[in-house]
């Protein structure tokens, strides 16, 4: 870890042994006593791999839901298989930073669902859960014996979410989909990137967009259930989740038959509206001037250069038409300046400007620091790390990270012995026979 990412705060109160009480919200996976939060009392069961499902439920957990992540040594999440970005060495599957991040604050139980007894255990967990989320390819969960009909028999008021690439019906239902694919077929890829280069490949971004869309869908269903007592089934399509963010682009096609495409940083009317190179490697400052007044202020800050007085730059339309030439001139001015200092100068004068922050920039941004967006998380293999917590500031029920992403089966004892009341000898047998595995 580099020096500017050194933890500035520590969670000193994590006890050595996990807490024993599985009552809602009395303890967290790390054993810490916790206070009441927005989703306290909601129990979530998760059969999910990768990012879409896991990141959604991690946010739920940070809002207070009790999330049980079901995994098995026989069917590990592919996110556990990755390499060190610097040395290219394979990482220990229990020490993967990204996996840890998308599974923060959850309880981990391991069940071999290929065994009949494993499926029975899962059904017992379903009977005490409020939400079941799965993100396998469409139809896989049905073949595992956990269709909505089967699940509803065990827990009639459950909210069950199936999140797949294209949804459960239609000619492309059931096709293998990862973020790059649903990013492409959603239309989003085509709309992002440089106009003269290939479309942007949305990977983790595409996943996270869907995690958050699924989040609000689930909470809406929870709210409905609280008022009516009725659960429901949610068939979610990841590609549609992304297409929804192109509403105005699609309306343009519907109204005018226009095929919009990617435009880099360009705006349909505003100029300047781009990132300009600053001093230092990979340093860029985004600057936008939305009207004549902001342009005048920008010109003043630049010290009223001669070129800025040229006719072609005197009107918004002129600046928009000549934005490439203007961009070079502004870029020449920003080139030997510090991006953060220039942001301060421009903002004080009243011009919208912000650096295009790298990871390092975000981690050292004083504003992000002041807002306490980053939290220290201890992990048995990864040590202490500063990670991005749920950044929504709920005044009465603040979000919080309770603990690291669970190791495989880390909370088996709590889940099987305490929650389900399985006697010790029986639990030992289930482990021996690799049902709990």
């Amino acid at each position, binding site marked *: 870890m580099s020096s500017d990412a050194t933890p500035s705060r520590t969670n000193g109160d994590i006890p050595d042994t996990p807490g024993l009480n599985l009552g809602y919200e009395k303890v967290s996976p790390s054993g810490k006593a916790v206070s009441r939060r927005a989703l306290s009392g909601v129990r979530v069961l998760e059969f999910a791999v990768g990012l879409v499902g896991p990141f959604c439920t991690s946010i739920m957990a940070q809002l207070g839901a009790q999330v049980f992540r079901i995994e098995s040594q026989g069917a590990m999440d592919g996110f556990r298989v990755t390499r060190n970005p610097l040395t290219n060495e394979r990482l220990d599957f229990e020490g993967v930073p990204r996996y840890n991040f998308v599974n923060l604050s959850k309880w981990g139980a391991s069940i071999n669902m290929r065994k009949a007894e494993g499926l029975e255990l899962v059904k017992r967990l379903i009977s005490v859960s409020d939400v079941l989320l799965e993100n396998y390819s469409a139809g896989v969960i049905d073949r595992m014996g956990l269709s909505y009909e089967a699940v509803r028999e065990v827990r009639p008021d459950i909210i069950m979410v199936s999140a797949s690439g294209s949804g459960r019906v239609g000619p492309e239902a059931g096709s293998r*989909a990862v973020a790059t694919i649903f990013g492409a077929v959603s239309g989003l890829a085509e709309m992002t990137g440089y106009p003269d280069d*290939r479309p942007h490949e949305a990977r983790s971004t595409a996943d996270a967009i869907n995690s958050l869309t699924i989040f609000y869908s689930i909470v809406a269903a929870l709210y409905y259930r609280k008022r009516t007592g009725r659960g429901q089934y949610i068939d979610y399509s990841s590609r549609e989740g992304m297409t929804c963010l192109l509403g105005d682009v699609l309306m343009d096609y519907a109204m005018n038959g226009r095929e919009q495409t990617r435009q880099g940083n360009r705006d349909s009317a505003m100029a300047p509206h781009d990132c300009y190179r600053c001093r230092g490697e990979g340093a860029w400052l985004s600057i936008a001037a939305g009207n004549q007044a902001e342009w005048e202020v920008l010109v003043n800050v630049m010290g009223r250069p001669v070129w800025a007085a040229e006719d072609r730059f005197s009107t918004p339309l002129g600046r928009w038409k000549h934005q490439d030439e203007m961009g070079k001139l502004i870029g020449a001015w920003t080139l030997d300046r510090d991006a953060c200092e220039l942001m301060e100068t421009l903002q004080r004068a009243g011009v919208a400007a912000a650096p295009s922050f790298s*990871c390092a920039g975000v981690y050292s941004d004083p504003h992000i620091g002041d807002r306490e967006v980053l939290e220290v998380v201890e992990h048995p293999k990864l040590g202490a790390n500063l990670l991005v917590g749920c950044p929504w500031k709920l005044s009465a029920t603040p979000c919080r990270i309770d603990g690291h992403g669970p190791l495989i089966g880390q909370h088996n004892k709590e889940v099987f012995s305490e929650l389900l009341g399985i006697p010790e000898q029986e639990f030992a047998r289930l482990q021996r026979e690799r049902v709990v595995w």
Partner: protein
Amino acid sequence: MVAAPYCAKLLADLGAEVIKVEPPAGDAARRHGPFLHDIPHPERSGLFLYANTSKLGVTLDVASPRGGKILREMLKDADIFIEDAPPAALERLGLRYDDLKRLNPRLVQVAITPFGLTGPYKDYKAYPLNTYHASGEGFMTPTGSDYPERAPVKAGNFVGEYEVGVNAAGAALAALYWREESGQGQIVDISAQEALLLLAASDMTNYAQFGAVTGRSTRNWPFGRLYRCQDGYAAFITLTKRHRAALFTLLDYPDWQKDERLLDQTWLEMHSPEVEVVIERLLAERTRAELFSRPQANDFPSGPSLRPGEVMKSAQFAARGFFTEIEHPETGKLKYPSAPYQFSETPWRVERPAPLLGQHNEEVYCQRLGYTRDDLARLRGLHVI
């Protein structure tokens, strides 16, 4: 203009009754394209029409004393108050949560701003361009760029702003859920910078752990991405040996058919540049439909990069009924995207098209708040509504 209205639209989609309060001059989105037939008109902005479906609409100058009073009358029995006022304006208008919670202790206030209500940047000015880049997501976009000297870019159009609205809707519903239990409202402070940071955060874990900064050119995987075909772009990924074997069969390149090394991920990663050159050449000669529009035929994840018109004509979207026709008095019938979820118990439906400017003034002010038609005429004369 987009984030807060879209947040409210998502709640309207879920059945909430949303009253959109616009200044008498109208939401700025009404002046933003795309416009029907490219002719600017406040009732024919595609951006406005999309972000405001299913809402009621009233006009009100909330900065005027009368307007402020009327807003408070509405907030008195509202469940959620969504606003995007800068923190200083919120204070000036007397609309801080501390002011409003006395009026309605059950109110959930959702404040959406570029940088949040606190912190050194709280009063900073920002357009969607700036918040997207401040979040760290812009720096890594476009993924896999071969041009480190070119500027990082934001996501297309208003993708970032809609996503901020998605975050805000989630937080608002969580607060509403808690209110059902506790009877208490609260304020939800949503910073666009932080909401968009969630898009980039999983890529920052390698920085936290190893000090590795992920950039545009290092965010990609070693093999498999978007490739140019004869008629556009297409994406594929191979995750297993079986996937790779299927790909090489599809590409029908004799040199590779019997080469076992190509099935090995590690070998491929080491030799990806030379393999990519051949793949690029092979794909450039074929159409997207030929290669990738048979999703079940290809065992590996693949698909065409669709343009807007292709999205709207896609059979998959049609089978799900994703695009829905909405009739609007100024534009006639148009196809709109609906919602990405299909609820078994409470299906999505559109309640009404986006409101005309001040369309529901009488319904809201007279029928609900008890103002007379004469009052409305006076308020209109004073430019309060």
